């Protein structure tokens, strides 16, 4: 299924082999097709959970008059055939909801291109509440305060209300190699709550409880107090992870398409001086030309860098972050988010773990900020926004890490998903204070190697109020999670093994006025149109 959605820059710059960045550098660096194919998969997953919180209304454009937070719902264009509205975040992500311009999301174009929001997913009512344990913990055991093995992971469970595994566990088992296992971190020092142990999954699916601050994690089985880091460094030094040689004349090795675009981009800057010097230009015309040439110049800068140095380190990365940290022992540990990022960096650069999970700061029970009336209370918005800020911080850090296997930054093949475990609600006036199963939302940054990022996809889970529906069934949360798993190369055999009922079997949900995919979950699959071919 092909969606004529608006394309974000990166897709053109990277996915079509035409001008610069990814394909450009691939040809410059002489990479092979198989390598490029491998780059189409996700490799790392980071979950940021806002424990026992609900979705803020400023995350979902409200179609009569815009979302809380000043969003412009007209930016979402209707794809009638697929029953979805699609809007590009572009350089002003806040226009799709105040949540999306928090922290670095507001100003970092790299993150803006990597954002993805999937709105309007159906779930069952008990799932929407998020009050029910996934079977590995209980409400009374403190799950609401930041423990990862209870309801904080509810949004990853596919609306299960009984014991089951969550999608991060399924992915962990699949993508980890021997000796790797997922990291869980949370600390009362940065708001994650007090008790912070959880289950870490390795390549065999074996569970091990790990203590959740960075110091304990570093001294635990993943890093073994740095011994595994040292071993990884030796492996890299022995040629286990090498950077390909740069050809003597990168332009000769370049594809005709890349070459043509480079030549065209160079000419545009030559032309720029002459056309902008015309006295006959009106102010509007001058502004239009400057916009045009600035956009081309941005592409040219990346292309020239790759063509002349072959370093490749700047691919898609933020300005100034072209030199990656290396795999080396962590000098110190701390209890803040920056410490988590450093630890995550070592884990990823040394390839000791591919999944991280952390609880967000500024924990606040949704009963306080939402049931109490936060649907229009601006004083509470900051609490919701903490999730966006921390997801952005993690994602931005990933842009500074260069994947030694691709020569490009890690954000493109890593995905940071920010979750809450309670749904919002939209009734006939667009909101209410109860839990709803109409309109669950996932927010992520990263993973453009596999996902069509840069957009909000809205399936409009509720049709009898301010968010008019398009026709056809809407996808469920299960399908979103399967989509992410598929991005990692997993198939139904992984999340729905033979004899099972599939990941997140659907539970008698009805979305008002809308048919819901209520058949056997084993028949469902990833949401069409979100994954790149």
């Amino acid at each position, binding site marked *: 299924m092909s969606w004529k959605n608006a394309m974000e820059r990166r897709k053109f710059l990277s996915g079509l082999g035409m001008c610069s960045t990814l394909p450009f550098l691939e040809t410059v660096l002489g990479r092979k097709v198989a390598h490029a194919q491998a780059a189409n998969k996700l490799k790392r997953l980071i979950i940021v959970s806002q424990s026992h919180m609900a979705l803020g209304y400023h995350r979902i454009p409200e179609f009569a008059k815009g979302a809380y937070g000043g969003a412009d719902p007209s930016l979402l264009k209707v794809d009638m055939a697929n029953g979805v509205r699609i809007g590009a975040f572009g350089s002003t992500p806040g226009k799709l909801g105040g949540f999306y311009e928090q922290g670095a999301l507001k100003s970092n174009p790299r993150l803006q291109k990597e954002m993805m929001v999937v709105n309007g997913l159906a779930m069952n009512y008990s799932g929407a509440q998020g009050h029910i344990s996934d079977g590995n913990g209980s409400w009374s055991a403190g799950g609401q305060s930041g423990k990862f093995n209870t309801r904080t992971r509810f949004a990853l469970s596919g609306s299960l209300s009984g014991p089951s595994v969550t999608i991060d566990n399924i992915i962990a088992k699949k993508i980890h190699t021997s000796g790797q296992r997922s990291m869980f971190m949370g600390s009362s020092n940065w708001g994650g709550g007090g008790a912070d142990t959880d289950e870490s999954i390795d390549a065999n699916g074996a569970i091990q409880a790990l203590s959740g601050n960075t110091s304990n994690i570093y001294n635990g089985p993943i890093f073994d107090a740095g011994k595994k880091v040292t071993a990884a460094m030796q492996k890299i030094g022995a040629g286990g992870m090498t950077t390909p040689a740069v050809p003597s004349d990168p332009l000769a090795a370049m594809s005709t398409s890349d070459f043509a675009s480079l030549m065209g981009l160079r*000419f*545009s800057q030559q032309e720029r001086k002459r056309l902008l010097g015309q006295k*006959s230009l009106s102010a509007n015309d001058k502004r239009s030309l400057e916009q045009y040439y600035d956009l081309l110049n941005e592409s040219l800068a990346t292309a020239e860098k790759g063509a002349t140095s072959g370093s490749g380190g700047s691919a898609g990365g933020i300005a100034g972050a072209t030199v990656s940290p290396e795999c080396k022992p962590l000098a110190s540990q701390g209890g803040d988010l920056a410490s988590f990022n450093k630890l995550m960096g070592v884990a990823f650069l040394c390839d000791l773990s591919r999944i991280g999970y952390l609880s967000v700061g500024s924990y606040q029970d949704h009963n306080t900020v939402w049931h109490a009336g936060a649907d229009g209370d601006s004083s509470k918005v900051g609490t919701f926004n903490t999730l966006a800020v921390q997801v952005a911080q993690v994602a931005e850090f990933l842009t500074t890490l260069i994947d030694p296997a691709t020569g490009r930054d890690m954000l493109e093949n890593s995905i940071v998903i920010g979750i809450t475990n309670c749904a919002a609600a939209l009734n006939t006036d667009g909101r209410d204070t109860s839990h709803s199963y109409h309109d669950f939302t996932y927010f992520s940054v990263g993973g453009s190697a596999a996902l069509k990022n840069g957009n909000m996809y809205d399936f409009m889970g509720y049709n009898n109020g301010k968010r008019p529906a398009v026709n056809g069934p809407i996808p469920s949360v299960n399908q979103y999670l399967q989509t992410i798993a598929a991005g990692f190369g997993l198939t139904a055999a992984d999340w729905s093994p033979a004899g099972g009922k599939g990941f997140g079997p659907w539970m008698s949900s009805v979305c008002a006025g809308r048919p819901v995919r209520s058949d056997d979950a084993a028949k469902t699959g990833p949401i069409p149109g979100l994954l790149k071919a």
Partner: protein
Amino acid sequence: MQFRNASPLGRVWWLCAALCGGYAATACTGSVAGNNNQGEDDGSGGGAGGNDTAPPGDPPVAAACSARTGRPAWQISTNTAFAATNIVAQVFGPDAAKDAQVKSMLANLPVNLKAKGFDTENKAIAAQFVDGYVALAARLATLASEQASVRGAIESFLGTSCNQTTDLEGGCGQEVARKFADAFEREPVASEDFDYFVQAYKANKAKYQAPKAYAGFLASVMLSAKSALRYDNAELTMAGTIDAATMGSRLAMTLTSALPDQALREKIADGSILKAEVRKDEAKRLLRTDLGRQTLRHFAEQWLNLSLLKSPPGAPSYVATNEESALVAAAARQEVGALFENVVLKDGGTLRDFMSTDDVVPGHDWLAKLYGASKSNEVKRAGATDRHGLLTRVAFSLHGAYGDYLPIAHRGYGVKVTMLCGTIGALPDKVDTTLPTDAPDVMSSRQFFEKLTERGSCIGCHAAMNPYGYAMSAFSVTGARLAKEQVKNRKTLQMVDVDVREQVNVPVDTVSRSVADASALSDVIGDSDQAAACFAHRFDQFAVGVKEDFLCSDDEKAPSNTLSLQDTILDYVTSSAFSAR
């Protein structure tokens, strides 16, 4: 009427007075929420009474245009995806147009289609378009360097014959290079730019061989701002008019959404395109080219707000699947475009001919069944006797339903705004969408909207749009003509049949007209000077690429609805407005 025998832009004066004098200046306290893109929310505002008394018409002519002085200048803007598609076919030929990557790139260019207005309105130089265009240019350059057939198509477009060469150093190759640059930039390429192209080509050929250097040249030309954008920065001639290159570019872009073809380029080169009679002949010719016909359809679909037409519901009781539903919508949209093209290209075809049509284009079985005609993509006469008039076509019914009711206000809004250029105020901050408590248990859609929108906060706007929708209340959301409407008893929830009532008074040309049904409404609009003026207004909007509320400064005389649609267009491209800087 007051604007007999006048040129198209003269409608501006009258139309502007009608538009500016009343509703636009008066705070409207209700509105159809959005449009096609906003989904079906048309019941949220107020409404007109359905009591067959004349609802408020357009305001009297008033000198209310002072706030809207001056036409906007033609200006540099982003190109449209539609034009990019046309140019690929025009210059690079069928093999390039069929290339999977090219098709994907064109499909993924921002379409710019809006629920209301024209794709040409988009003035911002969007990153998405520029990046997509860069990718497209590089792919086309690659195809041309690798495939002789693509080079052959280029040479055919340029009117050269150099055996599909990639070598631009020879005399013939130089001719190809210069003509390509001239054609793409739509004016003679600047000498310093051409020198740059030549030097870059020679250097690249020496190091990387001719095909690669050729691709670099093509991409360089295509990434020129003059090629990539709708570059309208006219140089004035000694006579104070725009230059021939700009005039030719405007003509080609307006009528074909493409580059000037060879015949037009010759008229540009000798300057004769600046002569009105030559321009008129060229326009007449361009309208009949394949690209011209496609552009007419493209215009009509946007003018009539059908570009984002909603599909009929994809439920078994309507159309089996979403995919099928989308096909129905596409066929319905294309039908209107085809009918429009047919009338425009028929000498003497008027707005009345278009609005009062008995013709159909049943390009889908669904349409064929409703129209009593066999499936066809050709214009043919409807077999059904209840399909007189454009507003009985399926395209004008497919707007989804408001709960259990037909989208009366939404349809009315469409007629009011798209065909009569009426304006509706902004949606108030708070709208009471609850049904008054004294509403009957059983109501037709018309009765429902009468009741729903009767309140003071709603009636202001809904009085101006609902009546047109009442006249169309015999058509279901899937385009079927109903003798009776099936609605739900609000108390028992049982479905019951109620009579359909279409008779209504509608405001057209500042007077109240009684119409019996959608067919009669079609005729009334076809006879309307206001609608004729609106058509000219919309075409001007499309050409210049501006939003609707402009055009108050032109002092030309207004035309009547007896002027053919084709002559309206031809008069426009020979008017002073088209030659303005």
